[in-house]
């Protein structure tokens, strides 16, 4: 068991996760839902980067002249690598979501969920 302050990063991550979750569930505006999803994603990224941390270790780039790097001197590069790709994929998927929002707005003229549902029902009823 870790004490409360040893895992301060994880409390920050939990706070961001909950903010993102609430935003996605409670906000009626689709744009805000998308931004809340991005906050959720940032929380996951910070979680992974916190996992990779080692006290007293440096960035995972071996300085020139060091021939036999030891594992304790450098932070874990694996979560950094995973999050590097996750950030770029996150940007790309946000782009797709924005494109979907643009086309929804062009068709229905609104991004507020209740109005949108009403217009879609009207359209389905003919």
């Amino acid at each position, binding site marked *: 068991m870790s004490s409360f302050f040893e895992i301060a990063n994880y409390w920050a991550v939990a706070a961001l996760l909950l903010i993102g979750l609430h935003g996605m569930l409670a906000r009626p505006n689709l744009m805000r839902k998308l931004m809340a999803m991005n906050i959720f994603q940032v929380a996951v990224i910070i979680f992974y980067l916190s996992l990779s941390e080692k*006290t007293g*270790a440096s*960035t995972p*780039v071996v*300085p020139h002249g060091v021939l036999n790097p030891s*594992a304790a001197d450098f932070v874990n590069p694996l979560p950094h690598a995973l999050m590097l790709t996750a*950030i770029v994929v996150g940007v790309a998927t946000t782009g797709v979501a924005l*494109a979907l929002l*643009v086309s929804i707005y062009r068709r229905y003229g609104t991004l507020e969920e209740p109005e949108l549902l009403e217009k879609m029902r009207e359209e389905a009823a003919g």
Partner: protein
Amino acid sequence: MNTRFLSLLAVLFMGSMLFYTAPSLPPVGDPESPASLHVSPYYIENSLSDMETPNLVTTVVTDYRGYDTMGETVVIMTAGLACLLILGFWTPKRRSAKKTHYQSFGSPILDTAARLLVPYILLFALYVLFHGHHSPGGGFQGGTLLAAGVILVRLVRGRDPGWGVDRDQATTLACLGALIYYGVGFVTMFFGNSFLNYSKLPIPVGEAARRSLGILGVEIGVTVAVAGTLILIFDCLHAAPGEETA
């Protein structure tokens, strides 16, 4: 009101679960935490001798987990193409004789600032790409910076900037980047029966140096794919309603 209440209920539930389980995680900065014990010491201790590349993140991204990154490159390319498909690809371009869609923030100050900044942004992008073996950087970051330079010109000078790549060229670049990545893999497969094993590249240098060059090759592919995709997404979102869509 009902939605908000239900949402708060879900948030409270998840919050209490997090509050209950988080103390069982290892403390932040613990060198003995399980995440740092299994494969990661191997990556740290061997990547310098395996491929002469001091940046451990680069070696993990492009060599030890090269298949993973290959998939990611295809994912971002697909995202760019999806934007193109969602926002009007099938209708032909409307080429008006008079350039009515010249919309810009083009004050002289912005124009001059962009002229000064853009070359350095692009140069820095290339530095980040090619120096990514020895310092923080690499394909994804370099590609993002390249796209940032091109998009800055678009923002300042409008939709017809007269410089940079247009939307169709960006589409080509996005696909070309993924193709370069796969191409390196197929070259190694052709010469050594081993997909994405850079030590099989037909280059007359030592094995570790071959791996280093292979990493550079796929990094260039990633850069091209990321830059093309980001420009493509920006162009799709930036097109005015009715301009190129039905």
